[in-house]
């Protein structure tokens, strides 16, 4: 493995550049982003590779920089205190479900994690209690299947039924954020309105100030 290639930096990149590239990639393959996605494993492998590459490079330049190999992951502290190991996730996790049909729901959950959606659906269909957990799990199945209209309906229902559960809340928030990206840069920046507004505002100010004062 060529760590420079993995991180997409040149061989004479500085520590700052390497770290910036690393953080950028961590953001790209973050476990939270792929939590309810069929490509979860693939993203995990990518992240593992990136972590390895970063560790190699920080170890190598250990003498010239302040980042030790053990501190390498801690160095990503710019995002918070968490480290980004493959198994890690900063997404909150609720306490294990303990209501009616707990065994079935646990089985369905692990089937979903193995991407065996049909088997998970069969279990859920056989369960008579359609509570928040049921709706949540069904929502995740729909999400992994790519049926977003239904997924959103189920996950919102789970969240409304039990807003205190961390799992439901984070799935609901995540879906909302991906459907309403509030700060999309570029592309949308061609609205001439804002530009015109600024210009006309300046012109008005000019007139007012120039004439009045």
């Amino acid at each position, binding site marked *: 493995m060529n760590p420079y290639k993995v991180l997409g930096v040149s061989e004479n990149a500085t520590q700052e550049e390497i770290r910036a590239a690393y953080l950028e990639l961590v953001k790209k393959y973050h476990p939270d982003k792929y939590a309810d996605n069929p490509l979860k494993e*693939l993203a995990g492998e990518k992240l593992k590779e990136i972590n390895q590459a970063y560790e190699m490079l920080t170890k190598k330049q250990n003498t010239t920089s302040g980042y030790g190999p053990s501190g390498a992951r801690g160095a990503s502290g710019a995002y918070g205190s968490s480290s980004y190991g493959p198994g890690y996730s900063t997404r909150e996790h609720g306490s294990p479900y303990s209501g009616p049909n707990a065994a079935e729901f646990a089985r369905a959950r692990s089937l979903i994690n193995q991407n065996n959606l049909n088997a998970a659906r069969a279990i859920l269909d056989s369960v008579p209690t359609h509570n928040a957990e049921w709706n949540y799990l069904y929502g995740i199945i729909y999400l992994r299947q790519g049926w977003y209209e239904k997924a959103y309906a189920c996950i919102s229902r789970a969240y409304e039924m039990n807003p205190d559960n961390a799992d439901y809340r984070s799935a609901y928030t995540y879906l909302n954020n991906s459907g309403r990206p509030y700060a999309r840069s570029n592309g949308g920046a061609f609205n001439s309105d804002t530009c015109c507004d600024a210009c006309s505002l300046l012109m008005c100010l000019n007139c007012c100030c120039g004439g009045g004062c």
Partner: protein
Amino acid sequence: MFGYIRPLECELKVREQAEYRAFYCGLCKTIGTRYGLCERLSLSYDCAFLAAFLSALSGGAAFYRGNCMPRCYRGGRPIASASPELDYAADVNVLLAWYQSCDDVLDEGRLPAVVSRAALRRAFHRAARRHAALDGEIRGCVSRLREIEKKNVASTDEPSDAFGTLLSAVIRRAPMLPQGDAAACGWMFYNLGKWVYLIDAWDDREDDKKRGGYNPFLSTNMDADAAEFLLNVTLAEAEKGYDLLTIDPPSGLIENIMRLGMRSVQRRVLRPETAACAGRAQRTGKGEAR
């Protein structure tokens, strides 16, 4: 298909724009040599994207300097050289154009649709012979779509799932697709297909209302905000698949299409009053893309 997958041209570098046009011209020429002059009219932006995407995945394409016979006044320009990627995109282009024209005949039954289908018949049979398995899958998805339309299913998920499955078959069946990228590409194209279907449905809402045709947004009675939400989620998922691919050397053109181009098309379709882009993408109408 529909011509919604395209770059935001005003954000392309000059080199990337030349590259995009080279793929477009190259695909047109490939359709010409593989099928015939008439079939070249079925050229679509989506298949130009397919050609560029497959070429980027397999390490980039070669170009030569050439002329376009019908538009020779423009002088020589780079054109993508013949390659398996272009051949595949040309075949897919013909297959999709055929099923599109079948759909038009069933929907409208007007003369232009009938004529274009008749013109494509020979080419379609040749393409279907070349890719029998792919043709079978496409046929299955198209008939599932018909079924859903007939039943007037009140869901955006079901019909878009059929079209997404169709596009993911297109990419998974590409002979030059690297095995390691198959899963990520499948998910990316599944979501691209969903997105194309939904954006086209939104665009056709008024027409379908007048004709009384099936439209998932009419049958679910969804407003623009909810539609935009779904489209955003779908694009975000397509990008997740795309993010997991290793495109080496990186392609600014594909990057532009994935991150800017489709989002700009979406804005233009959903909110025509606010999306005022100064690029070519803004001025070219939908009809031209077919």
